[in-house]
């Protein structure tokens, strides 16, 4: 297994490098530069600005300069949040996005797996249809609609939560719910499908034949197999949710990474955009690695080599 992990880590380095290179070229290919504004800067001053950020160098020099920085996880100063380096921006934003994301994800897993299991066991019942309808709506409804409805309901109609902000438990609940809801819905559907699949398998029949109670069969034997598709979905989903969501962060004014992602690209803040792309790649890759490792725990048939 150690060999497997090492091999994957080596691939990770190559992947990050490829992502870095493609992103670098894409960023420079987009028209418009970081110091363009509606108010034109006199050319002499613009030249000095570009020199300060080494944008006057030939492209290959800039590439190697940035690559060397990226290798040390030092992406330099942000162009648009000039008082901070990219490292500082990520160090402040990631814990916020990550904690909110983990909270939303835990909630999504608990709710989704429970709903999915119940649905599968009570197949074709009213409960099944109701839960799955809610799940379908949850997947179909965009985040901002769920968030807007929540704000109207729980901030204005029944004023129990603050409208927006960050720093207390009451600030956490609405955004975590809105962020987790679509994931919960998707997990519910995955669990239900997985559960139905597993319940028809021979080893479940064997377990029942042994005389195990229904509860033991489900919790101990069926759930483990049913969660395989959920586990493979959780990897990328966690990477995704931990790096923040633009919509939820904007609506609830949460200082996470989600809005940095979009803003950096729109405002041509090359170093910040690059830092976030690399961070996301590393997270996504690590999560997928974790998922692969977790397969050996969930499914005795899987061996890593």
């Amino acid at each position: 297994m150690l060999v497997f992990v090492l091999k994957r880590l080596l691939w990770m380095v190559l992947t990050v490098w490829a992502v870095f290179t493609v992103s670098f070229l894409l960023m420079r290919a987009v028209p418009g530069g970081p110091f363009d504004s509606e108010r034109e800067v006199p050319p002499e001053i613009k030249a000095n600005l570009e020199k300060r950020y080494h944008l006057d160098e030939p492209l290959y020099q800039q590439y190697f300069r940035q690559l060397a920085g990226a290798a040390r996880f030092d992406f330099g100063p942000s162009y648009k949040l000039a008082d901070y380096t990219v490292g500082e921006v990520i160090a402040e934003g990631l814990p916020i996005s990550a904690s909110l994301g983990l909270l939303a994800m835990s909630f999504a897993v608990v709710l989704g797996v429970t709903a999915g299991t119940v649905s599968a066991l009570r197949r074709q019942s009213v409960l099944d249809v109701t839960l799955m309808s809610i799940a379908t709506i949850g997947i179909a409804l965009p985040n901002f609609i769920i968030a807007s409805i929540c704000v109207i309901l729980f901030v204005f109609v029944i004023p129990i939560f603050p409208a927006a902000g960050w720093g207390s438990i009451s600030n956490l609940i609405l955004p975590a719910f809105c962020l987790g809801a679509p994931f919960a819905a998707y997990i519910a559907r995955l669990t239900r499908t997985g559960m139905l699949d597993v319940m028809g398998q021979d080893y479940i029949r064997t377990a029942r034949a042994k005389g195990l109670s229904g509860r033991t069969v489900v919790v101990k034997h069926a759930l483990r197999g049913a969660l395989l598709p959920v586990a493979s979905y959780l990897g990328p989903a966690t990477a995704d949710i931990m790096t923040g969501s633009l919509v939820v962060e904007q609506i609830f004014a949460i200082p996470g990474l989600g809005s940095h992602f979009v803003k950096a690209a729109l405002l041509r803040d090359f170093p910040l955009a690059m830092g976030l792309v690399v961070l996301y790649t590393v997270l996504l890759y690590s999560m997928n690695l974790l998922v692969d490792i977790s397969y050996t725990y969930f499914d005795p048939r899987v061996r890593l080599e």
Partner: protein
Amino acid sequence: MTSTGRTLFPYLAAGAMIAAVVWSLSFGTLERADFTFVNSTEIKSVDPAMVTGQPEGRIIRTISEGLLGWDPETLAPVPGVAASYDVSDDKKTYTFHLRDDAAWSNGEPVTADDFSYSFRRFLHPEIAAEYAYLLWDVVGAEDFSTMRLEVGQPVEIELLDRPEGALPFAPGRRISGVLKEVIEEGGGTDGGADNTDGGNGNGTGKVYVVDVGGTERRFRRGDVPSADDDVEACRWVLRDFETVGIRAPDDHTLEITLKHPVLYFDKLMGFYPLFPVNRTCVETYGYPAWTKPEHIVSNGPFQLKFRRIRDRIRMEKNPHYWGRDDVSLETIDALAVESVTTALNMYMTGEVDYVPEVPRTILQEIQAQGREDFSAEPFLANYHYLFNVEKPPLDDVRVRRAINMAINKQEIVDTVTQGGEIPARSIVPPMVSGYSAAECDAYDPEAARALLAEAGYPGGKGFPTLEILYNTHETHQTVAELIQAQLRNELGINVGLRNEEWGTCLNSRRTGDFMMCRAGWIADYDDPNTFLDMFMTSNPNNHTRWSDEEYDRLLEEAAECEDPQQRMQMLHDAEAVLMSEMPVVPLYQYVRPTMVQPYVKGFYNNALDVHPLKYVSIDKELKRELAGH
């Protein structure tokens, strides 16, 4: 092994969840500040030389103070660090008398040297302040800033080594001399000394021969000591700052000499990019470390307490501020809330006291409610369409005028913007003080058709498809669609629409890849010049490619003019040229829909949408009363 994995999983999940909650709570709940406002976005910097935007201005204005300030109601210059100032008879020399009790937030006095240092830094090419041109009317400042050198001129050379005992981020040792000759190296093609150095720091390029106290020395710009024996390496060769018109004869006097009278120069001194920075602080920590709340030293009514990226900037009263007795607020929060809807929600639930923008979708509803805390006052900003006058048929002034006359601007503000915007017939908003704007043709479809026929396109026949370029935004799109319909109906012209994301759109504008393009402009200071100079031939903002000798001449003469009334007349005449030549169609003047809680006192609407917070106070009784109901 499998069973441990399975049993472990729920615990891991629960652990992660608890960790997440603990983590997010570690930020702690903050006590609400005395005054909390929405600042629209995270600011770029608190360094006055680094920024250009309105959100940045709101913060710098709060933590720093310039020589002069602005009256919160009328925007007239009021004393700041300077208690008074004199203007010489030729209106070219301003002498500022600094007050004795002005102090930095560390208690040290603010002196004229601090301003001279700050202005020098602001102009220095290394800082590359985007607003540096604001001071280019000062004698020698433009040369200093743009690295323009002339043979025979006094120059200063910044060497690589620092003077002994200098702070870690102090500039290198400086020596002065007279420039004798500039030698181009490596086959440089641009001859002569009178050109700007593009600033290549690789050491090759130019050798500057300078007479330093009688001995001739040679310098080359570079970051490493020179390999040549007879050429020394240096960081900068600039016009000697001693010859720039900024002088501090003593601690409390600052003299600024201008190339020609600038009648709004006193107003300019209240503009935030010209606010001072603390030399010791800057040279101890360097940029950007000196801007950290734990390091920064500022001289305004408030000081930085802490910053959380994209969350808030907390400021508290500066106990050393000279006017501290009149400052009522103790703490201020500036929230970096980007969504206008979220900002409004926070306002409605009483979490914030001032929102600088209200969502367009609910404007009508709010206006219908007749709320007293809502206002939509016009300010010095306009929305217009630029023509690319090099693209036929837009090179024909008759076509441009016809298009202008066929656009029903009233309909745009009535059906699209709906916030009480004012249809515009001039590029300078009529509310600019002391100025009467020159107007373009009024809406007249009949005359527009006649003019278009005269230009050779009767009923729009043979007219190529016109294209409107705008940056992606709902309002811009609706305005463009309406104009598209108006032009088709009134003139029979086909109009295509093209929307581009902001950066791409700016690039298309700059490179002339457009026919008609949406643009906007917000005044920096209350003077027609801020709107008119962008259409001069030499101005980099002139994306229309329009050039008119008469217009350029009028503006240049106005810049030299000493008589305010005569100057305004010249600017009016220039605008008249612009409005008859029509490289630009003014559409409407912006309004700023804002909401301020009724218990906030000392807060006024004004033409620049600037609200100095040192005048603001909270009527606590009224606040309690309102909260009770």
